[in-house]
């Protein structure tokens, strides 16, 4: 399987948000704006690539019965690393996403790719898979964030185009997250699903 194909698969065929439906908690919670969604996606991408690589490298020595605990320790290490780095160098971003960064540990996407892909493939392939799925997650979250931001606050990537005032606030809050996600999923399946 070519490396490029693996990355493409992560974006469309294995898209974590619209096809695999994994990691819904951060998806719904952090996409109040396009920037927030993109940051969360990139944070997950970082953890996903590194944990996929580490896990596929460790696979030959990890005994079967303790493989889940080992994966969790590896993933938690990368997440904590990311958390410390964000706290130190991007404090403003950390403040917005703060609560959801530690939760990347329990994001099904990360453990899911470790189980479904990384422990059966080589380091390089696993890195590509991590990159693909991570990019898929980032794009989905950015699009979802953008739609919610446009409808809910009348701005895009922080740039306000309705000249002050409010958008339809419901879209910034939880109900809007479910609505937007549902309709985007319909659109995604309409465009990419082959019957």
């Amino acid at each position, binding site marked *: 399987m070519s490396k490029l194909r693996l990355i493409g698969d992560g974006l469309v065929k294995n898209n974590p948000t619209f096809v695999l439906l994994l990691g819904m908690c951060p998806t719904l919670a952090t996409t109040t704006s396009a920037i927030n969604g993109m940051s969360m996606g990139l944070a997950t991408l970082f953890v996903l690539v590194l944990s996929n690589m580490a896990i596929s490298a460790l696979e030959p020595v990890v005994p079967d019965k303790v493989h889940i605990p080992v994966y969790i320790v590896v993933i938690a290490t990368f997440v*904590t690393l990311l958390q410390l780095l964000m*706290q*130190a160098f991007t404090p403003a971003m950390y403040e917005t996403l703060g609560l959801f960064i530690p939760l990347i540990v329990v994001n099904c996407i990360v453990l899911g790719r470790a189980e479904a892909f990384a422990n059966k493939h080589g380091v390089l392939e696993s890195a590509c898979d991590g990159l693909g799925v991570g990019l898929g997650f980032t794009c989905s979250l950015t699009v979802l964030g953008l739609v919610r931001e446009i409808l809910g606050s009348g701005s895009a990537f922080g740039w306000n185009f309705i000249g002050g005032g409010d958008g339809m*606030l419901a879209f910034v809050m939880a109900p809007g997250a479910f609505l937007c996600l549902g309709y985007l999923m319909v659109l995604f399946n309409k465009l990419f699903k082959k019957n």
Partner: protein
Amino acid sequence: MAVKSNLTNMVLVLGLTCLFCSAVLGGAYVLTKDPIEKATAEKQNRAIAQVLPHFSDLEYNADGHYYKATDGDAVVGYAIESSTVGFGGALSLMVGITPDGVVYNSSVLSHSETPGLGAKCTTDGRFMDQWRGFNPSVKKLSVTKDGGDVDAITASTITSRAYTQAVANALDTFNAICHE
């Protein structure tokens, strides 16, 4: 494919993995400790500078959670940390009060108010500006709906009340400092 498990290799692999990961995190903690402290202190200093007139020295009082700002020998004001419960959770403010008991300015340290409604307490110019020079001996410190002189943020009375309460708490702290 997978390695067959026995007690020795399970303990060994899991133990070594944990040991290695702890070492990595320990190292990362030491490396990021200073930048994190610097970022936190910077944020605090920005908030203080925003709520007080020009000062040269700052002295922190850990008991009362306030900073006493002086310029030379003269006290120019107090920056008081104050928190209450807003609509979505804790609302914490930094309130600057000059020695004559007038609010110099206020700024939000952290909040979890509803985006677009209560969260406007950090962006709504009309709401924020009324705290600049708010004199509690002339104006009544409660929202207009409760018969006071504080104009609430549209559709966010609970947040505005909490904000007002936090300023009132800061003024209480200030009065306690003055009576010491």
